[in-house]
């Protein structure tokens, strides 16, 4: 599938990235104003130390097992497989985690780091609200004061999650600047952090941002891919032929992909938000249609105009409605290890209904993009092939959106 000559690339070396300065090839790095540089240095140093510390790992593993409920199942979706009419489709059930999505894998880890820094306050940006809920949840558990920044547009379309965060004791601040979506929430979180850096830990939810965040988030999410490998061996006696995950900022995808980088037999597909279609501008697919640039502390593919201004994006799913993407994905695209594709709003909605109706599993609209592409992919593959789709979150939060699109008032 790839156009790049993979034999020329040392995939083992790819897994050793980022380098010391936080770069994945030309991507990543640390592009923030000076006030934050020392906090990022401190965080890098702390994480380098704790990630080698068995006590920290033990605490993290314990929480994943007993608080999150890991391992999450790898489920054979028999009727979905039948409907797609090709390769066997398995679902990695991240939707069954506590709080209903993969996001908590990372917030557990970062909140533990926050605890070690002794900072009493945490902040987060959120799009769909899943990362906000996951942050508010761990903050409640650890007794940390939590503030979540959320685009005003998203506050409107993800009301349920906003209320969940407030019930958990978090303050939710609607952000009205710019396009009032995830990118603006991230701008505002950065502004807040710069002002309160002494007592505040910023829990970034996506695999983007200044170094060391892309690495932190990847490491904490990689539990998804590691479990998938083991479970695939249990179910099928071998690794899958393909893994599929949706990509907004790319945290669930990198968590699934990273452990498979060296397994060349496993094809990988990152599904971006195709919105109303890639031929126009109403989508959120920087890897498919964007150009490299610098935003939110890292160099990566972006949706930008000819003057370097960031473009407004569109996706039916708030969690994918972001003009950038994690820098490791940009690198994996360039070296051809992962294929980045897109599913439109309509395709995602159809997949949402299909999975709900024939498997009794209601996927998040974000994850529905991955389901939609996996069904297409499965149809092109033999019946003895195996695809794993990362079902990154559950769809309860999207019921209002789906009902609205169907013209139903709840």
């Amino acid at each position, binding site marked *: 599938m790839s156009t790049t000559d993979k034999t020329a690339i040392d995939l083992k070396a790819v897994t050793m990235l980022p380098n010391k300065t936080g770069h994945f090839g030309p991507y990543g790095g*640390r592009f*923030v*104003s000076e*006030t934050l*540089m020392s906090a990022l240095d401190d965080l890098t140093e702390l994480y380098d130390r704790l990630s080698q510390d068995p006590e920290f790992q033990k605490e993290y593993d314990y929480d994943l097992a007993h608080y999150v409920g890991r391992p999450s199942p790898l489920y054979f979706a028999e009727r979905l497989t039948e409907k797609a009419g090709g390769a066997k489709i398995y679902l990695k059930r991240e939707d069954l985690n506590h709080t209903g999505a993969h996001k908590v894998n990372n917030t557990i880890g970062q909140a533990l780091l926050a605890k070690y820094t002794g900072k009493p306050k945490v902040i987060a940006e959120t799009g769909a609200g899943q990362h906000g809920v996951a942050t508010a949840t761990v903050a409640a558990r650890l007794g940390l004061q939590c503030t979540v920044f959320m685009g005003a547009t998203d506050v409107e379309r993800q009301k349920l999650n906003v209320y969940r965060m407030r019930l958990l004791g978090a303050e939710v601040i609607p952000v009205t600047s*710019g396009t009032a979506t995830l990118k603006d929430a991230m701008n505002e979180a950065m502004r807040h952090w*710069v002002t309160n850096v002494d007592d505040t830990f910023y829990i970034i939810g996506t695999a983007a941002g200044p170094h060391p965040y892309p690495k932190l988030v990847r490491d904490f999410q990689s539990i998804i891919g590691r479990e998938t490998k083991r479970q695939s061996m249990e179910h099928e006696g071998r690794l899958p032929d393909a893994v599929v995950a949706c990509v907004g900022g790319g945290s669930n995808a990198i968590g699934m992909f990273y452990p498979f980088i060296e397994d060349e037999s496993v094809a990988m597909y990152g599904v971006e938000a195709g919105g109303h279609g890639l031929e126009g501008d109403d989508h959120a697919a920087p890897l498919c249609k964007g150009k490299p640039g*610098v935003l939110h502390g890292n160099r990566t593919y972006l949706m930008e105009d000819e003057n*370097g*201004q960031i473009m407004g994006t569109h996706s039916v799913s708030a969690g994918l409605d972001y003009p950038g993407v994690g820098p490791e994905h940009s690198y994996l695209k360039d070296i051809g290890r992962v294929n980045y594709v897109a599913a439109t709003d309509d395709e995602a909605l159809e997949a949402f209904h299909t999975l709900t109706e024939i498997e009794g599993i209601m996927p998040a609209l974000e994850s529905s993009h991955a389901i939609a592409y996996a069904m297409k992919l499965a149809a092109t593959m033999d019946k003895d092939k195996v695809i794993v789709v990362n079902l990154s979150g559950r769809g309860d939060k999207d019921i209002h959106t789906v009902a609205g699109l169907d013209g139903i008032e709840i």
Partner: protein
Amino acid sequence: MNRVDQCFADLKASGKKALIPFITGGDPKPGLTVELMHTLVESGADIIELGVPFSDPMADGPTIQLACERALRHNTSLRDILAMVKTFRETNTTTPVVLMGYLNPVEIMGYENFAKTASESGLDGALVVDMPPEESEVLAGYFKQHDLKLVFLMAPTTPDARATTICEHGSGYLYYVSVKGVTGSAALDIDDVKANLDRIRAKTQLPLGVGFGIKDGKTAAAVAKVADAVIVGSALVRCIEENENEPDVIKQRLSALMTEMRTAMDA
């Protein structure tokens, strides 16, 4: 000699401190920017920091965010800003102009192309807010080739080792951010600023400018006592914001505030 170096040498000889106003290019409309630059010079500016509007100004408070939005309503681009500098140079060949903005518009124009065009336009330097010294090597090379200054920020949170690195990389002057926060934030603590400037001065011969929290004659004069340059942004941008459709009022207000600060600093 680069105009920035010349400016600080002249000021030193006359025992004065630099007053550096900031406005966003293209705010409230592109046609007015060059006129406003002249107004700033006439009312006491030694150097002009010209903002390049960006869609996601992460380090800026609401005032400069809105200035960016006004400029972007007219699609003001980095190329447009450089053209404004070129026009300004037709009638002013002495006042240094330093661009201030974010990296992405520079990335898309290309570092080499930017440095070359900037130099041809009569620009003297640039401060790229989200490009720390660690990421600046390539751009710094082109800047050196064209005798352009690369100005860096220094913050209250900058530890000593980093401060040394920044001093080694910076040229023209250093911009000390007086408070932890975004542009237009709360008042600065002058004793704290002085202590930090003393710490930096031990490491470098570069002139030290102070920005953030300076809004009137009183704060400008206080900062002028401890720094080599006083940088004022949001307070001036607010004069534009409040009189968006009245160019003459904007000029009067800018001129009045500049004069107040100049007078207080020179007293």
